């Protein structure tokens, strides 16, 4: 690798390729294939057609009038919940599945937290005739049961991971182990802007369609740019996707991490320190010995001790600000959107909504785009079981 290539895999000090030797060849191969695909007009055309006809893009930018009145500003929702399979995850899943087919891979492994990435990957694989194995923490299988059934219906094998914290972190460990065991025929379809280079940049690029659309839609409707963009951050793919459209503008970027119950949380950008997890340098929740800490969030998709390297970089550079919203506050926003606008958001996206409310309470009158990254149907059985609705 040349010096330039090494730099390309880094966001400041963050990122890199901290993986066992067995995977290095795969990552180099993936990097080359992705660089080639970026220059390939046929690949671009196929991806665009897939996004339009299979995913259902462009998604609307919706002016939430009653919510705006409530919050005291102008609130716009980027409706990723309206995509096929119900969350932004499908944008990246179809992109990587097309790339995997180009690489001649016949088998896809993926991790999933809330199950949305697993469902999106299963759908993308069904469409291309690829074998699909999804690793999911056993705890998440329980709290996101509808998505487990959907993945199976789409032909995927779902493996419940019983080790340790039984959540997203464990699912990623298992997916990487699977990939190490079968590097030749398998592509690891990571669902967020985490993992070793080239994943963080590649997943951001596949998700950047959100930001491109939102920027153009806002400009066209309002004749100006928004004051702020707000998105929830677990690994950080929906946030990176929408931020990508506004990085060079004078638009505030707000990422929202999961505050859980307060003491236990999943907010590495707010309370973590830099370290290496799942192949990349990033902010992490860890102890003095470098052991990764357990996390808690009501939202399975945010329940992760690390965060994408580019977010780690944007935090240090000050270009984006990162905040914390707790379970209870997110749940209130979840119910409020249902009542005011007739939209049931994912618990993950509800964290972003809750922060938008806080932001407008402090600074009324701002125009804000909230990335409504997914729909909340998946959360209902678990919330009702726990009598939280």
């Amino acid at each position, binding site marked *: 690798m040349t010096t330039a290539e090494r730099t390309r895999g880094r966001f400041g000090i963050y990122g890199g390729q901290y993986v066992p030797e067995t995977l*290095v060849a795969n990552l180099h191969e993936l990097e080359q294939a992705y660089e080639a695909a970026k220059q390939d007009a046929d690949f671009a055309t196929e991806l665009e057609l897939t996004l339009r006809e299979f995913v259902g893009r462009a998604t609307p930018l919706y002016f939430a009038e009653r919510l705006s009145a409530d919050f005291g500003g102008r609130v716009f929702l980027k409706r990723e919940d309206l995509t096929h399979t119900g969350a932004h995850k499908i944008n990246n899943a179809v992109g990587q599945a097309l790339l995997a087919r180009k690489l001649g891979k016949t088998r896809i492994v993926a991790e999933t937290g809330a199950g949305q990435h697993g469902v999106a990957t299963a759908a993308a694989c069904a469409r291309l005739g690829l074998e699909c194995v999804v690793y999911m923490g056993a705890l998440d299988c329980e709290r996101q049961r509808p998505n487990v059934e959907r993945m199976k219906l789409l032909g995927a094998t779902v493996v419940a991971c019983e080790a340790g914290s039984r959540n997203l972190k464990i699912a990623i460990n298992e997916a990487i182990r699977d990939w190490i065991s079968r590097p030749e025929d398998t592509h690891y379809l990571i669902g967020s802007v985490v993992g070793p280079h080239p994943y963080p940049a590649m997943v951001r690029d596949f998700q950047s369609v959100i930001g491109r659309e939102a920027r153009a839609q806002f400009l066209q409707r309002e004749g100006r740019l928004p004051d702020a963009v707000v998105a929830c951050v677990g690994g950080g793919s929906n946030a990176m996707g929408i931020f990508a459209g506004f990085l060079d503008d004078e638009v505030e970027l707000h990422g929202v991490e999961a505050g859980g119950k307060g003491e236990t949380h999943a907010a590495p950008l707010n309370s973590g320190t830099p370290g290496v997890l799942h192949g990349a340098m990033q902010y992490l929740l860890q102890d003095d*010995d470098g052991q990764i800490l357990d996390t808690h969030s009501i939202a399975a998709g945010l329940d992760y001790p690390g965060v994408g390297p580019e977010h780690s970089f944007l935090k240090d550079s000050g270009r984006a600000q990162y905040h914390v919203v707790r379970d209870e506050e997110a749940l209130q926003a979840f119910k409020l959107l249902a009542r005011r606008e007739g939209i049931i958001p994912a618990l993950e996206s509800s964290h972003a909504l809750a922060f938008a409310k806080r932001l407008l309470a402090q600074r009324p009158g701002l125009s804000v785009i909230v990335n409504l990254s997914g729909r909340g149907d998946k959360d209902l059985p678990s919330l009702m079981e726990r009598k939280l609705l």
Partner: protein
Amino acid sequence: MSIDALNTAFERARGEGRKALLPFLMAGHPTRQAFEHNLAQAGEFADVIEVGVPFSDPLADGPVIQAAAATALKNGTTLPGTLDVLTRRKAGPPVVLMLSVNQVLARGLERFAQRAVKAGVSGAIIPDLPFEEQQEAREVFTRQGLVLVSMLAPTTRPERAEAILRRAQGFAYLISVAGVTGTREGFAPETIEYIRRSAALSPAPVCVGFGITRPQHIEQLREHADGFIVGTALIRGLEQGLSVADVLRPLREACNQQTTGVRS
């Protein structure tokens, strides 16, 4: 200097016409006391001992070693605690630590290397620190006198393998198969060819790890490698109530058999 301890260990094995045996023990497994006892016993059979420092999220370990790490963490095993145990050790073969890059970075490269050397550690195997990410660690370790063990996999491309092996110090760790640690049936002709090719390129002794669980494995590969790393078989044996000696004795014997062609 720790590099000397490793070189001496391999030279002695070669001089005596046998292959080196490198057993792997997980610090704090199955209990902290038992580990200290096992470490002493392993010294009677080993040319070099690998000591794993348990990590919460290992990527390259199979289920047996992963479970041992979880047990060790529950027992309160830490890196400083492990180094204390090694400091207390009075004699025995050289020790290399196996741990995750985040455990090293959490201490700081410099402080980690200083403390490891002070505890009598000869080298470190950091599976998730591949060649391209090694430069800084290598500089610091070299300055402190700690060997950073080079690793190679069957998937490593030839020109990269050459670059990695050129830097090998102490010994080179050849991962025998694509996969995590654990049990394998036998070795394919490609594997033997990969080991033979690597050995020819490496200035340092080459040791094969992953899937070495039975004397037959060693017999199959013995004329192509300088040493064998035994992890899963030993950990599983300990879990089943066997002693270190029970597990290592037959493997030691397989390493001791004279080969027809000695690798120069």
